[in-house]
């Protein structure tokens, strides 16, 4: 993370805070879902890591639920505006029948809500879940469409010129949530 003069980075959450936030997410999911069947689906890349960590906590408590993965690149509404960005697609994997299943979607940060809109479209092309809910580690506000999370780790008020960066050991080799200001 090299900071050029006009960019400042500050730590919002330490690895310990991340761990406890994910733990409380898992507890909220367990309380809401109880013994009923449900499945977790992570949005690439860090939503997948988040879903797997929650599934691990639940499994340690004896609650086993399947984890799927979803790449939403093909469902984005800004394909034309990508400019020079050439997305590398990931393999979505929904290893359970989705029809009639209660699904909890995971993403690391919710911002405008457009990613989740794309994820809902993508998920429903696999079938018809009985219910879809949304869990996020960070809610940084500034929604542009009416989508709200059902489970939130931490609410982080932010400015539009700021960027909330989540780093997980599994993906980045380092752990932390950072506020980047341009």
């Amino acid at each position, binding site marked *: 993370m090299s900071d050029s003069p006009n960019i400042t980075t500050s730590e919002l959450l330490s690895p310990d805070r991340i761990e406890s936030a994910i733990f409380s997410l898992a507890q909220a999911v367990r309380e809401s879902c109880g013994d009923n069947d449900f499945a977790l689906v992570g949005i690439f890349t860090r939503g997948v890591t988040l879903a797997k960590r929650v599934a691990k906590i639940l499994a340690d408590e004896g609650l086993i639920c399947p984890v799927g993965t979803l790449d939403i690149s093909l469902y984005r509404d800004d394909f034309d505006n990508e400019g*020079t960005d050439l997305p590398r697609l990931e393999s979505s994997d929904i290893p359970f029948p989705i029809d009639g299943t209660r699904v909890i979607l995971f993403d690391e940060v919710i911002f405008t809500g457009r990613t989740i809109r794309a994820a809902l479209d993508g998920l429903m*092309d696999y079938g018809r879940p009985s219910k879809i809910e949304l869990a996020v580690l960070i809610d940084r506000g500034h929604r542009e469409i009416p989508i709200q999370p059902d489970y939130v780790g931490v609410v982080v008020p932010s400015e539009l010129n700021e960027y909330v960066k989540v780093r997980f050991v599994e993906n980045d080799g380092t752990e932390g949530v950072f506020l980047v200001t341009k």
Partner: protein
Amino acid sequence: MSELKPRKDLLDIESLGLDEIEYVLGNAVPFKQLFQRSVKKVPTLRGKTVLNLFYEPSTRTSSSFEVAANRMSADVTNFSVSSSSIVKGESLLDTIETLQAMQSDYIVIRHQAAGVPNIVAKHTGASVINAGDGYHAHPTQALLDSMTFREVHPDYAGKRIAIVGDVLHSRVARSTSTLFHKQGIEVGVLGPGALIPEGRPDFMQRFQSWEDVFDWKPHAIYLLRVQMERQEGPFFPSIAEYHKMYGMNSERLVSMRKLGAYLMHPGPVNRGVEVTDEAMGYEKSLISTQVENGIAVRMAVLHWLKPETQMD
């Protein structure tokens, strides 16, 4: 992760970097996985138009592009020579002007003359995809061949592929062998002497007989189609003789099976010429996988190219 430059057109294999090839083939895998879903369509190219401009007869390639575009939610228009004003004497540039006015975002073009897709690409903001021009190139065929071979041989570098047939008249042989060569796969060719181009391309090993091919222990045998419609002279005496000398018959099927080599063919197959009915049933034939992968690769190409039509 290296930064790829956006590309407007796909005209040949020669000009592609290995990173671009890896990018497209990497993305083709998730596209192929969509075929397992009940909804095989994604909304990525909603509102975009794809024009299939075929100056040469083609059912497979044009329908493969059409399926690929449909699965990405693009609108497809098919423009083929028999139903167009090309037969009425309209010049290529006039046709391009007409196409411009239609505001297509992607133009898929097949033409009997090499280089026509390049000319069209130069004169339009649409992304142009060469779907075969003369004896020159057929890049999406090469990409789908590579994808198919890599599925059965993920550790493809250093593997050997024998191409058998009419290499001279085959843009498939040219593009596919160039791509395999770029990826470190060895390519050898067997075919009628008159149909193997002298000294081109120089990396290909030339065989004199099927015995030589089998001694080389290829991992795949790629049979080319005898292009009945593109023979301009007496390159070989008869179809029967071609079959006898170069076709995949029962005896060669035994040797291929013994080697465990895969069988590939770009289609459409001339049964009884390049290949017998019996060999068509070979358990290690990849021919239908090639068709399926063709759709995935073409979706990945449409996703990759950046038309200049959205600029203003």
